[in-house]
Structure formats: structure tokens, C-alpha cells
């Protein structure tokens, strides 16, 4: 049976952090008693230490040690001195704006934080040509630049970014095990900030011509369509913004909008409608992408007003029809999802698993805005700090 450990310490004490990290690296659970909380806790500790006031003090199944070294700990627990777990105070799944904002806060609180990213650091913001509504940038900012700056700020305080894919989160009590393609991470709190990805149309030709005429990233692939004709599918902010970006290369951009108006912001709609390279086709659904000899040649749409099919000759199609949450890896976990797969949280942004939090686009109720994602990331960071300071006192109580 595992040894029971009572840990007397304080949150300002560097040796307490050192010992906590060592315990985490060996997957050893403990009850933390904060000596700043009450005189009773101090008296309890002093009784065990014959009046010697020194933290960290550990009571390991009745054996009391003060400020133990790694080798003393290894001997007491009968384990190897070297770490057996890749332990961090906080692991974030994803490294988009929300996770990066959280990391800026947690690292400044001296919480050892690692971010695991399977796609692009900065998330969807990084692949957005221009972000015009993020506060503090009167002229707007390139999405990639915003992402790079958020990353640099988080790294300046010590955030560590790992490239890999998280496949599972296991609740092991005090510790959470984050399983990735490159091995496991152990932490006391997890932030899921995996955001969302662009939806696919699910029409004939879309899969067949992916990357060969069908695209979901204008900043990535737009440059291949210099002086070509393009179709953009969608009527929201992304379709409008990326459609405008594509006019830098394309000779003509036709935007197919399913409803009778664009859902994009008024400023963007006005730019789109007045652009001489862009034609917007309302009430037009996208039915099929047709190719010949390995390249896209036309898109077949359906005009809902006339109830007739319409054909658009084109060299490529860019699809921006909305977002789907990146929560597939949580399907078999205890994290609760809503009907569309977004993560349900309580008021402290905590999921159904204690110590596992969610913020940004992936959270049920999110507004899908970078500024909101950043705000939620900061909130989640503060909630995780509270959880870490309070949560680990309850283990044996």
C-alpha cells in the first residue's frame, strides 16, 4: 500500500516547490497543509518536529523529515532518485491564444507550465490573415504576428511548448495523466484549450481534391492562385476576411453564401460588397466540386430562389463554413460535452473532472472571439492557481 504523506509547507517556499515537483515526478500523492493558513497547522507540525520550525516538513507514515534532499526522499519512499514521470504543475492541451494567455499568468505565478500543441502555436488566430478586432491594435494585426508575440510573452516567463498530440486525459486523483503521441505528462491541473477547426462541406469532390484545389487555409495556400479564379464558400467573418485576403492573388473571387445575407461584421461585409474582384452569390448552396485531370475546374451550386443549379468555373475552392470543436480525444473521457461537442464547464471554468479546466473556443458558451479566448485563459489560470492551493489539502481529510 502506498505511503501516506502529510506535507507541511507554504506557497512562497522554494524548497516546498522543489519537493512537490520531486513527489510529482515520482507519482506520489500527498496532503498539503499550508502553515500560513492557521496556527493549529503550525502547532501540529511543531509537535511532530520537537518544536523545530522549518518547511517543508513531511510526515511519511509517521516518519518526519524536514527539507529532505532528493536522495533522502528516494530512500524514504524506496524509489529511484531519477524522475519516473514527466511532471509539471500545469499542462495545457493546445497552445492557441487561450492557453498562451493562461500560461502567461501561471508562469508568472511560478507554476511550472507546459503546453502541448498538435497543430500551430497560436491556433486558428495564427492562420488568420488579419485580426482587426483584438483590442490594443488600432491598425489591426496579422494573425501570425499576434500568435508569435503571445508565444514570446509566455516563453519569456518560462512556459514550455511541446509539439505532439494528446490522445487521452486520465483522472488519477491528485494527479492528471495527459497521454500524448510522444509519451505521458503528469500534472496537478490541466487546461483544455484545443479550440476549433474549420468544418468541411461533406460534398462530392471535396475529399478527392483536398490540397489540390480544395483548401481551408487562405494564408497557407492562397499564393498558389496568382491570377486565377477562386470560389470561397461561407458567409461569416472568416469567409469575408479570407475572401478579401485571396484578392491579393486571385483575379476573381466568387463567394457562395447559403442564406440571403452574410453573417460577417458590417465593416467586413461592406469591404466585400464594394470590392471589384469579389462577387457574392446569396441563397446559393454548394453541391459539388468537379475536377478534371487532377485539378478543380468548376463548382456546382444550387440557387434556392430560382431552384436551379448554377455552375461556377474556378481554379480552386476555399471553405470557411464555421467551426467544429477539437474534442474528439475526449469522447471516452469523463469530461462532459454538449450536443455539438463543446466542453461543459462550471462558473470556475472547471470541467466534470476536478482539476481539469477548459477555456476559449472549445468551451460550451464560448463566443469564438480571440479576445474572449484570451480573457477566459487568464480566468482559467487564476482558477487553476486557486485549485492548486486549495485542492491538494483534501486528499486524506
Amino acid at each position: 500500500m502506498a505511503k501516506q504523506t502529510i506535507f507541511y509547507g507554504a506557497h512562497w517556499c522554494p524548497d516546498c516547490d522543489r519537493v512537490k515537483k520531486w513527489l510529482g515526478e515520482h507519482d506520489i500523492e500527498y496532503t498539503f497543509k499550508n502553515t500560513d493558513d492557521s496556527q493549529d497547522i503550525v502547532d501540529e507540525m511543531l509537535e511532530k518536529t520537537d518544536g523545530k520550525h522549518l518547511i517543508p516538513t513531511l510526515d511519511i507514515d509517521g516518519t518526519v523529515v524536514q527539507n529532505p534532499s532528493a536522495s533522502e526522499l528516494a530512500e524514504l519512499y524506496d524509489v529511484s532518485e531519477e524522475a519516473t514521470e514527466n511532471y509539471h504543475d500545469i499542462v495545457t492541451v493546445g497552445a492557441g491564444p487561450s492557453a498562451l494567455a493562461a500560461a502567461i499568468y501561471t508562469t508568472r505565478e511560478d507554476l511550472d507550465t507546459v503546453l502541448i500543441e498538435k497543430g500551430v502555436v497560436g491556433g486558428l488566430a495564427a492562420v488568420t490573415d488579419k485580426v482587426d478586432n483584438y483590442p490594443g491594435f488600432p491598425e489591426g494585426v496579422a494573425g501570425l504576428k499576434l500568435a508569435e508575440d503571445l508565444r514570446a510573452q509566455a516563453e519569456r516567463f518560462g512556459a514550455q511548448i511541446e509539439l505532439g498530440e494528446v490522445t487521452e486525459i486520465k483522472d488519477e486523483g491528485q494527479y492528471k495523466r495527459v497521454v500524448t503521441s510522444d509519451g505521458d505528462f503528469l500534472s496537478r491541473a490541466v487546461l483544455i484549450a484545443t479550440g476549433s477547426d474549420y468544418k468541411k462541406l461533406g460534398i462530392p469532390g471535396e475529399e478527392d481534391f483536398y490540397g489540390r484545389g480544395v483548401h481551408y487555409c487562405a494564408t497557407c495556400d492562397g499564393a498558389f492562385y496568382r491570377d486565377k479564379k477562386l470560389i470561397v464558400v461561407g458567409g461569416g467573418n472568416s469567409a469575408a476576411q479570407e475572401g478579401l485576403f485571396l484578392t491579393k492573388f486571385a483575379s476573381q473571387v466568387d463567394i457562395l453564401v447559403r442564406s440571403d445575407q452574410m453573417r460577417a461584421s458590417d465593416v467586413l461585409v461592406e469591404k466585400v460588397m464594394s470590392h471589384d474582384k469579389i462577387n457574392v452569390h446569396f441563397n446559393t448552396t454548394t453541391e459539388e466540386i468537379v475536377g478534371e485531370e487532377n485539378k478543380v475546374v468548376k463548382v456546382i451550386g444550387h440557387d434556392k430562389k430560382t431552384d436551379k443549379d448554377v455552375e461556377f468555373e474556378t481554379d480552386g475552392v476555399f471553405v470557411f463554413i464555421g467551426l467544429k470543436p477539437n474534442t474528439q480525444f475526449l469522447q471516452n473521457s469523463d469530461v462532459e460535452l454538449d450536443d455539438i461537442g463543446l466542453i461543459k464547464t462550471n462558473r470556475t471554468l472547471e470541467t466534470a473532472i476536478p482539476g481539469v479546466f477548459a477555456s476559449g473556443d472549445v468551451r460550451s458558451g464560448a463566443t469564438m472571439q480571440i479576445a474572449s479566448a484570451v480573457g477566459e485563459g487568464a480566468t482559467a489560470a487564476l482558477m487553476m492557481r486557486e485549485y492548486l492551493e486549495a485542492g491538494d489539502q483534501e486528499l486524506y481529510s
Partner: protein
Amino acid sequence: MAAIKNITVFTTTTCAYCPMVKEWLSKKGLEYEEAVLDKDPARQQEMIDKSGGMTVPVTLVTREDDTEQIVIGFNPGQLASATAQG
């Protein structure tokens, strides 16, 4: 498996996934050559011929026996198997 002779990463300057591939290769200690297609359009056709597509990033791993492996997009798992040593 033959040793890696060279690695080429096809990119564009505005593509956010491209630096991720370069960072992944660098973290693994792998050297690579970069072809920036919007600055060097002459190499676009080479990338299209190799990958059969018009999307970046594309990573081309050539081994000493001249076998080639292509990874389209930033995919750590596929990059790991394409650059496996020994």
C-alpha cells in the same frame, strides 16, 4: 533503412503551419533546406510534382538510396516516421 541525405521543406511566407514543421525538425536536430515558394515561384512546380497538391507545408525526405517520402501539412506523427533513423 538508408540514412537521410537531405530534407526540403516547401513553405510560403504567410503560412503559419510552415514554421511548425521547421521547429519540429530543428528540435529533433534534423537539418533541412527551405524553398519559400512565394519568393521563389520557380520551385512551385517541383513541389506540385512531388506532392500532387498545391498546399504547404510539404516536407520531402530523401534518403541515400534516393527513396523519397513526402509529408503534407504539419503532422508530428508522419514527420516522425518519415525521418526515422536506422
